[in-house]
């Protein structure tokens, strides 16, 4: 993009409707292929999260003199899966390059990455912002993860840093979008969708710390762009971009030109700070990695394509069609593969629409409120609850209470229903309670006959009280009206 003159910029910034000026966002998303058992170029384990620092290492991922990388073919297969799911064109042959720079987390003084002949180019995925939007994927490439720096304090004030090389050499996939995103919210939606797809492909576990890192490029239409480096959470991306949008708009409003620069997102303070300007941009001196030979991948793409699992969009359409549930419910249910599987499991045993409502609206809400995942709940329990509800054994209120109890205290539905006395009361007991209430409250009965509707509510309340809230309200109302 050509830098504009100050005058032109001033002119633009005074254009009416400037507040609405387009925000242009492009993302470089680094995801760890953390479902692989070994690292990208050696056989060290990727399951380092519970390990002591620097224990999941070997001469290769420590970059010891003389050690050589060997490509993990499974990582290539995973990358091809992702590329296919992102509707990319896949290269016939891929190559690895060295990206040269010095940093203490980088054991060899270069990172093995891709440059020309990356694994895939020109893809797209759709997100649902205000209506469906297509976000183009520029390229997808593989590279090795550096180690992890642990700064004592913050990056700009740390007295010393510790290094853990357990992460060094883990396979990363970098997904680069075209600058098609228009709001920080769209950026978040994109990331959610990407995570969703990756988890469907079973190549990625987004719940692990450091499994996703984002570099975000953001500019106002016509202005210089800032690159925010190394944002490590989904929420952080939206927050950093919001901060940056406001910062850039304020600069423009005050007639100050936005500088092209690299910025760091401070998660704690929720702000971005300048790291370096364009003049200090690095020259990475890319050249082909001589220790790895070009790799033909064209011949395996078809096999991988055939074995590709059903992806979120397709699953959503199928759920609507197969179970006749609402598109909204299908969308919520497919937002996580585990949730969709949970639903299908339950829907084979009880009414699909009832299942959809109770899983997507009630259960998901309770899970979100507690910040836990669907793993915390068993589909068998859901089936039991919905069957009891369907057979009039418990009330809706009772069902909610069972769900909450399981989540908070544990236990199984029949036992909870019994322990908490949630079994819906039989008609004969209600009939008796109704008779008693009518007898004990002649004034209210009179009011009712005088046409005061509130009296009925009062009488219902009395019946509910006598039955400890276990009576079905509609049944109570029906019986009261009969007797009165």
């Amino acid at each position, binding site marked *: 993009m050509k830098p504009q003159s100050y005058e032109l910029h001033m002119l633009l910034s005074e254009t009416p409707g400037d507040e609405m000026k387009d925000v242009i966002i492009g993302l470089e998303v680094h995801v760890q292929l953390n479902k692989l058992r070994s690292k990208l170029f050696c056989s060290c384990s990727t399951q380092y999260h519970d390990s002591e620092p620097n224990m999941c290492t070997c*001469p290769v991922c*420590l*970059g*010891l*003199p*003389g*050690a*050589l*990388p*060997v*490509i993990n073919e499974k990582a290539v297969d995973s990358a091809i899966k992702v590329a296919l799911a992102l509707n990319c064109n896949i290269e016939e042959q891929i190559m690895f390059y*060295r990206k*040269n720079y*010095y940093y*203490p987390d980088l*054991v*060899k*003084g*270069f990172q093995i990455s891709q440059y020309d002949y990356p694994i895939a180019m020109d893809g797209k995925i759709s997100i649902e912002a205000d209506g469906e939007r297509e976000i183009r994927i520029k390229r997808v490439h593989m590279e090795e993860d550096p180690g992890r720096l642990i700064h004592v304090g913050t990056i700009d004030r740390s007295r010393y840093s510790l*290094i853990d090389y357990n992460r060094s050499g883990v396979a990363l996939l970098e997904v680069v979008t075209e600058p098609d995103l228009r709001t920080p919210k769209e950026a978040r939606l994109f990331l959610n969708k990407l995570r969703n797809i990756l988890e469907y492909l079973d190549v990625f576990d987004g719940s692990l710390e450091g499994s996703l890192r984002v570099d975000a490029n953001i500019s106002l239409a016509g202005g210089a762009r800032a690159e925010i480096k190394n944002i490590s959470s989904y929420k952080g991306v939206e927050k950093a971009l919001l901060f940056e949008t406001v910062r850039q708009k304020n600069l423009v409003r005050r007639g100050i030109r936005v500088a092209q620069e690299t910025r760091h997102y401070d998660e704690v303070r929720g702000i971005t700070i300048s790291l370096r300007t364009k003049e200090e941009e690095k*020259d990475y*001196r*890319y*050249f082909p990695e*001589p*220790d*790895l*030979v070009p790799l033909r991948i064209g011949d395996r793409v078809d096999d991988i394509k055939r074995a590709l699992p059903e992806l979120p969009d397709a699953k959503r359409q199928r759920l609507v069609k197969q179970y006749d549930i609402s598109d909204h419910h299908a969308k919520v249910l497919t937002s996580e593969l585990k949730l969709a599987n949970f639903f299908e499991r339950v829907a084979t045993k009880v009414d699909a629409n009832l299942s959809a409502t109770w899983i997507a609206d009630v259960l998901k809400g309770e899970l979100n409120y507690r910040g836990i995942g669907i793993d915390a709940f068993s589909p068998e329990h859901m089936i039991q609850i919905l069957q009891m509800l369907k057979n009039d054994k418990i009330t809706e209120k009772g069902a909610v209470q069972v769900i909450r109890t399981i989540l908070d205290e544990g236990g199984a539905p029949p036992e909870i229903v019994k322990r908490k006395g949630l079994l819906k009361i039989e008609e004969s007991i209600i009939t008796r309670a109704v008779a008693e209430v009518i007898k004990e409250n002649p004034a209210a009965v009179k009011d009712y006959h005088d046409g005061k509707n509130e009296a009925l509510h009062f009488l219902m309340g009395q019946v509910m009280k006598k039955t400890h809230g276990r009576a079905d309200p509609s049944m109570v109302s029906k019986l009261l009206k009969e007797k009165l």
Partner: protein
Amino acid sequence: MNVDGIREMVKSGKSVEEVIQSLFDKIERSKLNAFITLAKEQALEEARRVDKHGAKGMLGAIPIAIKDCISTRGIQTTCGSKILEGYVPPYDAHVIERLKADGAIIIGKTNMDEFAMGSSTETSYFGPTRNPCDLSRVPGGSSGGSAAAVAGGEVPIALGSDTGGSVRCPASFCGVVGLKPTYGLVSRYGLIAYANSLEQIGPFARNVKDVALLLDVIAGYDPRDSTSMDKKCEYTKELRDDVSDVKIGVPKEFFGEGIDEDVEKAVWSGIKVLEDLGASYTEISLPHTKYSLAAYYIIAMSEASSNLARFDGLRYGLRLGKDKDWHTTFSEIRANGFGEEVKRRILLGTYALSAGYYGRYYLKALKVRTLIKRDFEVALKDTSVLITPTMPFPAFKIGEKIGDPLALYLADVNTVPINLAGVPSISVPCGFVGKLPIGMQIIGRHFDEATILRTAHAFERNTGG
């Protein structure tokens, strides 16, 4: 003293421990400075074990010296550099595993030009090695320590590495046999890289038979090196005394200007010896030879600039007193730990890879390399080997050329094209200028080490070598 000599000594009643101990005694009295590190304890322990339980494998109880750029578990590995002084690798290179499996006893690590950058072993942080034929002269380089140790009778066989001539040059200067295998024949796993796409580990010995034997042990596919290939054969069995089917090509670009007259004469008489044994020869041309030095140095230095980036003192190697911030600390360590020649090559390589220069230098050098490779393929279609002088001249004086890097680079003129083409090549002694040995280079087809070994072997047998 060759492999058979050692076996004789043991057969005649000496213990392996005595044999190894006698080598250490000799090395400790030596003026050659061929070794950086002696693995005395480990070697003698292994010798005692062999004396007790017997030898195993193709190299049972044979002592060997290893160039100091090959990773040896538990033995300091410095690459001749201050920056790696004190670095003791936790793992063995592939070739070391093979040697140990075949019973060889590693006696020490040999001196070399720092990070294999040089042709004289003068750029070593641990001081120059001297040529056993004339102590005032260089042994060649960069594997000068290995060649001098073998020539000086301090060890019967040794390993070197050859990026642009680093095995063949010192073999030529010291009057021993040295082989650079086809790129991909020997695993580079554990070879500390100078220029990955060019180099191979290669054997040194006093005769062709021992070189073939050592190659039998170290060659073969290794899944840890993606550029390694499964192309090995049994080289000692190929040493027939018959060259009647050998068609020699003599590339005119490797003779003439810049080549010492005595050297040319010795190589020609070598070719004549082979002709007398039934081989035929034709003069041929490798037209792109004149670009090979430029292409070689661009590729080698570019790769080196990246390979040597890992030496920042953070995880191993040199540390200087109190640490400052990251940038200052690693810059000071590198400024202090690398020698002049290494710095020169890192700077040139960094420049060649920089934005805006990459296409002009690195990419162009790769194109030249393709042309040179094609030259060799064409020439070796109608011929089975090519013969040239290994070095343009015999060993020069220590200090004579070290102040003139360009003159030193030019000394590699006949060896670097072979690395660019990736073909195998052996240097065998073929005469003397005074007391200084001359080397004849025999180049072969890709993975056809058998033919060059056989040719060299026949030559050696018929010249009393």
